[in-house]
């Protein structure tokens, strides 16, 4: 496997990846192939969506629905919802779409009864596009707050600091007199109010919908006759253990959680809207700031998506550099995970100080090759921005072959048998494989539940098919397995790194000429990678212009969080803190 013949022209494809599904033949008259140039997949009649989706899951075996997103085709007066379904056994996916007239109310049937994992993503589409998913039990705004005016991702919605449709803005050159955006807005700030708005008469939303929905999800008392009062506790957004600015509304019976609703959007930085204004190249540094622990992985996902659209090959040496960086990034992410999990369990500082020490050494490598510790901005379409200097390559080799394996062993010796740790982790928050798939959970959390689904193996991208490694998998699905699987993954990443460092060829680091304006043909592409947190997907629609028409990020943390309700009902509130650490959420990616 390790020395498979290199055929860069046609990357190795497993039989599963080349198979095609003909939905049109199965549902004549209901489903049509998407014939727009550059597009793939099928367009399903809105009325038959649930029927087709059920068949896609049950008959065709696409059990994992990873991405749901809206697209606003304002010129055609259409609103589209795009679904990406995959098989947990691996292979290519199935794209199906629903198109509706762009006249309010825009209604599409919800698929929540088929794939529970669409919950948050449908709420997001409602929030940002105003697409009503009929049958969704809890369709509230998710990233913005109730009462916000408008649906921001619609193409006719303009933000308060709107300057021009696309970058670069004309005011910057050649007469670039510096002005603040505030001076151009009538409200002198990043604000926009409807006409004749009177703040004195405004009634603030009391979040009743949230508490009503929390009530609905609360399990009713069944045992005994004694009636106990339930307490609703709001945890966050400022809370030392919510991993950023996440808020959860919890109903407690004593110390037991009987209902829970995450509230997010406290770090919603409008990546999608800004991304549609940026040029393709300008989006790369913005992807750094999604999952800010793993900017290399984010770059990777975005780069392969746009390369898919551009239909270009990546330089051979650059492929290896990419893999090396992505795997180093995985190692340091899991190191932080271990430290942060210990912090949340109450083992403050010592374990996290140890893990951060190793992370610093990896960040030194990133700093030396890319120029920044965290926001690397290292990938370019067709390759990477600059070569790895020899001394850095030497340092990586030293880290990979000597230091990191030894330190991983040391951490295991340090923690794994600790009785307190075992008591806190073993058999707590069990997620079984079936539920994990139903909730579209990906990444280490899914693999700890016993599903060996790793995109590097299941749907190989870049050159991962050349490396010999095992997909880390554990079977209990409890917190202990989730913790241990991170060590397994560190070891597998080190294995990949060793091979990559051995095989890395000399040569150019970019197949393209450096250009700040790339030509991207019209079409759509969904690129996904196995980021350390799970499946990181980018859905990019191009209309041939220098800026993407639609730029959507399918974040791993966001979708993984869908399962949190299911996992923690019936457990103790003290364990919930550890659960958040276990899911390894990062707010930059979750809220975007």
């Amino acid at each position, binding site marked *: 496997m390790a020395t498979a013949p290199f055929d860069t022209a046609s990357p190795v494809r497993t039989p599963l990846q080349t198979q095609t599904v003909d939905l049109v033949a199965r549902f004549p008259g209901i489903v049509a192939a998407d014939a727009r140039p550059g597009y793939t997949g099928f367009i399903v009649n809105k009325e038959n969506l649930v029927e087709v989706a059920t068949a896609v899951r049950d008959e065709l075996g696409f059990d994992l629905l990873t991405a749901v997103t809206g697209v606003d085709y304002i010129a055609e007066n259409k609103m589209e919802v795009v679904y990406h379904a995959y098989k947990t056994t691996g292979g290519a996916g199935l794209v199906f779409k629903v198109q509706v007239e762009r006249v309010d109310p825009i209604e599409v049937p919800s698929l929540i009864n088929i794939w529970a994992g669409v919950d948050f993503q449908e709420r997001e589409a409602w929030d940002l596009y105003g697409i009503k998913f009929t049958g969704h039990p809890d369709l509230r705004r998710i*990233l*913005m*707050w109730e*009462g*916000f*005016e408008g649906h*921001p991702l619609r193409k006719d919605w303009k*933000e*308060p*600091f*709107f300057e021009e449709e696309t970058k670069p803005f004309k005011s910057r050159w050649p007469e670039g007199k510096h002005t603040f*955006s*505030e001076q151009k807005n*009538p*409200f002198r*700030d*990043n*604000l926009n*109010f*409807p*006409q*004749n*708005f*009177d*703040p*004195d008469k*405004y009634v*603030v*939303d009391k979040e009743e919908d949230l508490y009503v929905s929390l009530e609905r999800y609360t399990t009713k008392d069944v045992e005994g006759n004694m009636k106990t009062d339930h307490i609703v506790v709001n945890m966050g*957004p*400022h*809370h*030392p253990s919510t991993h*950023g*600015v996440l808020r959860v509304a919890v109903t407690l019976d004593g110390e037991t959680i009987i209902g829970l609703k995450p509230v997010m*959007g*406290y*770090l*919603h*930085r*409008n990546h999608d*809207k*800004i991304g549609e*204004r940026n040029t393709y190249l300008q989006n790369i*540094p*913005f992807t750094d*700031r999604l999952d*800010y*622990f793993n900017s290399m992985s984010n770059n990777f996902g975005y780069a392969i998506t746009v390369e898919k659209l551009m239909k270009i090959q990546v330089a051979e040496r650059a492929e290896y550099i990419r893999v090396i960086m992505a795997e180093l990034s995985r190692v340091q992410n899991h190191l932080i995970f271990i430290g942060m999990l210990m912090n949340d369990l109450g083992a403050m500082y010592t374990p*996290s*100080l140890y893990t*951060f*020490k190793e*992370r*610093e050494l990896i960040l030194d490598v990133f700093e030396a090759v890319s120029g920044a*510790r*965290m*926001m690397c901005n290292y990938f370019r379409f067709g390759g990477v921005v600059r070569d790895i200097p020899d001394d850095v390559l030497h340092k990586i080799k030293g880290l990979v072959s000597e230091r990191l394996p030894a330190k991983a062993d040391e951490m295991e010796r340090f923690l794994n048998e600790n009785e307190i740790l075992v008591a806190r982790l073993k058999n707590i928050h069990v997620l079984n494989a079936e539920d994990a798939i139903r909730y579209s959970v990906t990444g280490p959390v899914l693999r700890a539940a016993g599903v060996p689904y790793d995109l590097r193996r299941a749907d190989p991208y870049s050159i991962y098919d050349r490396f010999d490694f095992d997909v880390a998998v554990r079977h209990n699905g409890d917190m202990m397995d989730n913790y241990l699987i991170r060590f397994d993954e560190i070891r597998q990443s080190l294995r990949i790194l060793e091979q990559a460092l051995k095989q890395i060829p000399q040569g150019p680091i970019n197949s393209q000429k450096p250009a700040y304006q790339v030509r991207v043909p019209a079409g759509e592409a969904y690129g996904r990678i196995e980021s350390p947190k799970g499946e990181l997907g980018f859905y990019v629609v191009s209309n041939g212009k220098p800026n993407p028409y639609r730029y959507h990020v399918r974040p791993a943390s966001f979708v993984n969080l869908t399962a949190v309700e299911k996992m923690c009902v019936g457990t103790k509130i003290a364990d919930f803190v550890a659960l958040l650490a276990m899911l390894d959420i990062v*707010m*930059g990616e979750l809220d975007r």
Partner: protein
Amino acid sequence: MDYEKLSLPNYNIPEDIQNAVAITTLDRLYNWGRRSSVWPLMFGLACCAIEMIAAQTARYDMARFGMEVMRPTPRQADMMLVSGTVTKKMLPSIIRLYNQMPEPKYVVAMGACASSGGPFKEGYNVVAGIDKFLPVDVYIPGCPPTPQALIAGLIKLQEKIDKESIKTVRWYNKEKFDGNYVPMPILGPDLIDVRRHAEIRDIAATKESA
């Protein structure tokens, strides 16, 4: 103890008691105590928070400046390190935290986002700088500032504290005592700054409908 920073330079203290005696002013003593134990609020917003955590860890070790005690509760914190993008949805919580902090309190805007909205300034959910609401003492540019840059910024804050005087600091100023309290903004169709009610109403009335 660090007497050289405490003692006034123009007094000649005999050498043999230099380590035991310091002649100083009340201001200097006050500032010395303050600068040497700035406790930050344990409060992270975005990417910069990770660099803030890194600054607390072994390599940079903010404990050397008396800043290692990250207090999760605002009641025990002296400094709010606004580390990351301030969104409109998060702003009321930040202001509430600030109002709960006891005086003296300092605000450090870490990174581009907290200073002015940074690369996300154009976003519809982003507040263009925390200084629109809170009095910021130090701005640290960078996206994100490296831990060393953060420490450099915090040294700037210490220098600022050194120049303070009990007579002039705003929290002992009886006339504008309310200056330390910032009214909470409201989340309406957009972020409503309650101090600007009349202004917003007037501009909204003259606005043309879209």
